[in-house]
């Protein structure tokens, strides 16, 4: 590999195929001119990692190119999924209203779910809409912290706030970044079609196969938040946190990579999660035991696409992480 090829490989890491091709083309032109003029062309280009960081901000990355069709040509949610999510929300609020001090709970719930109808009524399908949605999501996260702080204390405010921010603001930020880049005429190749899979399932499969760059930041943050929650309210969150840490260790050490072993492992994992979710109710933890159930529901939701993929893909095609 020549020094220029090495520089380009480092500078284009994680960029989409089209972005990488554009960088290669312009740097090659630059290099040719610099070489003709004499001098050390590679030294003049500088640190390729610094260039890579700068390129990622302005050119479509590989992950953004994969996600782009989901934002530019979104499918409207079906009536069934709208009914199911509305029913789940109603059940959640009903559960809270029975178990907790309702006048202190409802304003927080209202703040958390206030922007939910926007995904149906005002989907982020253009740059302008994405800007509005990102702005609203930021405001909402601040409002949630304020309302939770006011009604339930600073500890709840500071716990709920980051969750709402992570779940709501970051996807909007991503769509904003994609639309801003597409507005300059950048293009992307659609993900190669996977027979029998929806686009969302194909994205998930691609990430399971190739890894998701944000995982290396997100996984430690989530783990840190769980450990923090367990230290803060051990009766409510310690069983669930212990269970998840055990799962992380087991997935990386146990020989679970056959269909039968994987099935047994997943039964054990989800049984343990269910026990950890309802356990706090038995000894009346201080904070609503529903906190642990809420956490379990989040993990179950994040597992939904993996479940669909296991049903649709033959075992021989499962990526390693689908066994978990």
């Amino acid at each position, binding site marked *: 590999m020549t020094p220029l090829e090495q520089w380009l490989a480092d500078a284009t890491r994680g960029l989409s195929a089209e972005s990488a091709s554009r960088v290669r083309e312009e740097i090659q*032109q630059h290099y040719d001119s610099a070489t003709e003029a004499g001098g050390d062309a590679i030294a003049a280009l*500088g640190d390729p990692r610094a260039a890579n960081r700068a*390129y990622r901000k*302005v050119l479509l990355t590989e992950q953004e190119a994969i996600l782009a069709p989901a934002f530019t040509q979104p499918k409207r949610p079906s009536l069934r999924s709208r009914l199911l999510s509305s029913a789940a929300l109603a059940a959640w609020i009903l559960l809270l209203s029975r178990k907790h001090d309702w006048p202190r709970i409802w304003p927080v719930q209202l703040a958390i779910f206030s922007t939910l109808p926007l995904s149906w009524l005002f989907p982020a399908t253009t740059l302008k809409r994405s800007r509005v949605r990102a702005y609203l999501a930021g405001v909402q996260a601040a409002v949630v912290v304020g309302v939770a702080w006011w009604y339930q204390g600073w500890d709840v405010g500071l716990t709920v706030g980051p969750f709402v921010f992570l779940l709501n603001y970051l996807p909007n930020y991503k769509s904003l970044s994609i639309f801003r880049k597409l507005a300059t005429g950048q293009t992307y190749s659609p993900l190669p079609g996977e027979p029998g899979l929806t686009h969302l399932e194909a994205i998930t499969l691609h990430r399971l196969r190739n890894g998701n760059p944000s995982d290396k930041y997100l996984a430690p943050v989530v783990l840190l938040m769980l450990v923090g929650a367990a230290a803060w309210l051990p009766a409510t969150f310690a069983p669930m946190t212990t269970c998840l840490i055990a799962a992380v260790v087991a997935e990386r050490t146990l020989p679970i990579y056959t269909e039968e072993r994987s099935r047994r492992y997943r039964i054990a994992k989800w049984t343990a999660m269910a026990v950890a979710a309802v356990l706090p109710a038995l000894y009346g933890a201080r904070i609503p035991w529903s906190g642990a159930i809420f956490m379990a529901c989040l993990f179950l939701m994040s597992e939904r696409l993996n479940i669909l993929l296991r049903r649709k893909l033959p075992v021989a095609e499962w990526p390693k992480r689908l066994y978990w």
Partner: protein
Amino acid sequence: MNVRGTLPALILEAIERRPDHGYSIAQRIKERSSGVLDFKEGTLYPALHKLEMEGSVESFEGIEKGRARRYYRITKEGRGVLAKGRKEWGKVSRAVSVILEGA
């Protein structure tokens, strides 16, 4: 010397009179500053793409010495950004001069 944050304005100034390609823009900035303003050329292109994203420049394919090149030209918005940049830099440089020369 690399005065942080000035590269976009320097690029806009370099293409104010005529469109140009990346290598020529980099050389022109270095020559006009007599080599005082130095920056790593690998960061020039992300800065150009950012200006393009903001609508300050637009790019097109051109030919130079029989070779395909990507040229950049300043837009109306870019001229506004450059005028604002000049004004701000004037203020900053005057303030710095007053402090350093007065010391």
